[in-house]
């Protein structure tokens, strides 16, 4: 009985503790939102928007930024200076206000341990941060990019800092000629970017495609300098950068302050590359500085011949294999060979950044060999197809001959037996 009683007491205590824990897990009272949600326009809208904000979903209240006492029902008391109410922060105060939590590693760990906490220090190194410190409040602060009361995580497609939203977010200011007028910088970046191969990939759903922040940084946004941008391109286009560093252009362009990648590919409006960019023909970029007869022009010509030659061979081999495949021939292995040859063309196109004609030719030659091998296999498959047709025709002739012989044999047998039966018949 005593054991039963003690068990009951333990159970009761456990239930009480669980109940207490449940009470503490309840969302904090937020009278700010209760009252503001009933207001219209400027005073009501933030409260309505905040319902879907990442902060609201994690238990952060209005008072966390605006101060005051959300537990107090009396408006005058809850929004009194005595309760720490600070109202709407000024633009200059915003980075520090956000950083109160976002720069506090211990605090942020409770919400998202993987989130960085160096945004403020990064921001202070950026042109935005420096100008803000200098008193220019027209530059971007946290809320300009992330929003104010409807902030969503960057992974959300609805967030203004989601990769696919970033160009428009940056372009809101940088694409506004009137707004950017005092800074005397171009405002065609967004329009240019939207014609680029990078934007094509991004809008096609490739979230790894570069956006403004990939090259310019996000919190530590800096204007582009000659060396910085060439380093940025190389973070993705590693081999191109390494090979370019070995090229004669590297040393020749540095004193002229010509940017390595931008000189040929441009910056925001980067287009699909093509083999006509090299060589002496129409659309050649090489001919902007070189002439056909100088050494650079000759090298460009060699490279062009190597690339277009391999490309042509690849096309021919693919056409032969397509034809064989359409006829039902198995050319899987030849397809693998052709795919390896195509990789050689890609490598040769990367190798051209060395501006070493011999090096590109070496790569393209190995690709040509593989293309010819694949082509040969395709030709053999087509020959095999023709052989099969002839073999089939001969076999069918032989089979038809046997069938006709059998038919004649059957007819003969049956005529003979019919004759014998007729001979045995009493009526005959």
């Amino acid at each position, binding site marked *: 009985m005593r054991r039963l009683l003690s068990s009951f007491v333990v159970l009761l205590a456990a239930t009480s503790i669980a109940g207490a824990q449940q009470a503490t897990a309840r969302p904090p009272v937020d009278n700010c939102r209760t009252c503001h949600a009933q207001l219209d326009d400027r005073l009501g809208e933030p409260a309505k928007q905040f319902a879907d904000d990442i902060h609201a979903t994690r238990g952060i209240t209005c008072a966390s930024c605006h101060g005051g006492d959300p537990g107090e029902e009396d408006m005058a008391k809850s929004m009194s200076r005595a309760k720490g109410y600070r109202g709407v922060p000024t633009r200059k105060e915003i980075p520090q206000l956000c950083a109160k939590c976002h720069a506090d590693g211990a605090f942020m760990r409770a919400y998202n341990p993987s989130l960085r906490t160096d945004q403020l220090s990064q921001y202070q190194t950026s042109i935005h941060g420096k100008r803000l410190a200098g008193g220019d409040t027209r530059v971007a602060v946290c809320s300009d990019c992330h929003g104010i009361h409807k902030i969503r995580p960057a992974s959300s497609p609805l967030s203004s800092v989601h990769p696919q939203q970033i160009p428009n977010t940056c372009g809101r200011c940088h694409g506004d000629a009137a707004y950017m007028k005092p800074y005397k910088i171009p405002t065609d970046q967004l329009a240019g970017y939207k014609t680029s191969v990078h934007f094509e990939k991004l809008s096609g759903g490739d979230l790894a495609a570069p956006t403004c922040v990939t090259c310019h940084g996000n919190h530590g946004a800096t204007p582009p300098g000659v060396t910085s941008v060439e380093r940025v391109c190389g973070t993705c286009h590693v081999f191109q950068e390494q090979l370019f560093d070995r090229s004669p252009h590297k040393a020749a362009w540095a004193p002229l302050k010509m940017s390595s990648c931008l000189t040929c590919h441009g910056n925001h409006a980067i287009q699909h590359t093509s083999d006509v960019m090299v060589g002496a023909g129409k659309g050649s970029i090489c001919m902007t500085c070189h002439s056909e007869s100088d050494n650079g022009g000759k090298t460009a010509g060699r490279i062009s011949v190597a690339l277009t030659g391999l490309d042509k061979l690849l096309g021919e081999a693919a056409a032969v294999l397509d034809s064989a495949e359409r006829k*039902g*021939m*198995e050319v*899987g*292995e030849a397809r693998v060979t052709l795919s390896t040859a195509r990789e050689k063309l890609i490598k040769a196109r990367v190798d051209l950044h060395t501006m070493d004609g011999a090096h590109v030719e070496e790569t393209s030659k190995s690709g040509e060999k593989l293309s010819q091998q694949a082509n040969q296999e395709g030709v053999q498959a087509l020959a*095999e197809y023709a052989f*099969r*047709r002839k*073999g*089939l025709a001969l*076999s*069918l002739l032989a*089979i*038809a001959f*046997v*069938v006709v012989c*059998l*038919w004649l*044999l*059957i007819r003969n*047998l*049956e005529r003979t037996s019919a004759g014998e039966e007729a001979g045995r018949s009493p009526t005959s």
Partner: protein
Amino acid sequence: MALMLQLRDWWEERFGKDLFSFLMHKQVPRHRHTIWYYLGGMTLFLFLVQVVTGILLLLYYRPSPTEAFESVQFIMTKVQFGWLIRGIHSWSANLLIFTAMVHMFSTFFLKAYRKPRELTWISGCALFFLFLGFGFSGYLLPWNELAFFATKVGTQMMAAVPVIGKWLLTFFRGGEEVTGATLTRFFGFHVAIFPLLTTMLLGAHLFLVQYFGMSTPISVEQAHKDKPVPTYAFLPNFLLRDIMGWYIALGLLAALAAIFPWELGVKADPFAATPAGIKPEWYFLFLFQTLKLIPGRVVFIEGEQFGVLAFGLGAAMWMLVPFLDRKKEGPLRRLPAVIGGVIVAYIIVMTIWAWRS
């Protein structure tokens, strides 16, 4: 001919005259439905083609997920006439099921299952189901994408069998998923277990066919009420016609293999997403389409389970037709033909529907 006579003498000295005299005197009824008699022989011929080409393929085929696809590719591109052997094996498999199906339905509509041929019918049905098993197990062996996912969908249906479904699924897959274990298991079924069962059943079926002779359709019997139905000799008249049909089938197989080589596709990738429009072989399409159309829940059981149960029951009833069709006279005597007609129409409509969808 002299050699044949010598051989006959050699045989008769040792085993007596029974077999040769039986074959020499065996007669086959000759009437307007005689053409249907040739489909059994045609199916047998195609089965023998399968055995011969299957053995040849075995010389190079390797039943493992890392080598199966490559070995079939090797057969098709490097082995002398390997493409022809594989092409004939694949086409013959499909023609075999087609001729077996037509043979079975012609037997049904001509009521050739009547007493005393009940066991001939049952053994024939069992052989047909075995051929379907051959088709299903052989489909996976090249280990290409289409076969892999079709097998995944096909074996998943086994899970719907009440009580033993889960066990069946694990047994046939050799685990929870379609893996290399499934491939070796299917290979074992395809080249050892099914051939053994088929040989035994086929032996019994052929013995029964020879023992009872060809059945004469009721309409022909009635038309020749007072006089015997005309016949011709099994040897050589019927057999020569059979051989003629086999030659034509051989020509058709060669033409199909040369003009429409059986595709190999791309190697199976178990981690890839199921491609859109995965369908089983044509002979399973009506089952597939039916299961797709059955609602999620029928009365008190799951739709898929209901479908599998219904088809299981249907197959059992189909095999027991000789015992269910007892009415020789009266309005109900035509009922089996009507039901058979509905079944054939259903199979054709569902197959076309699934094919086009």
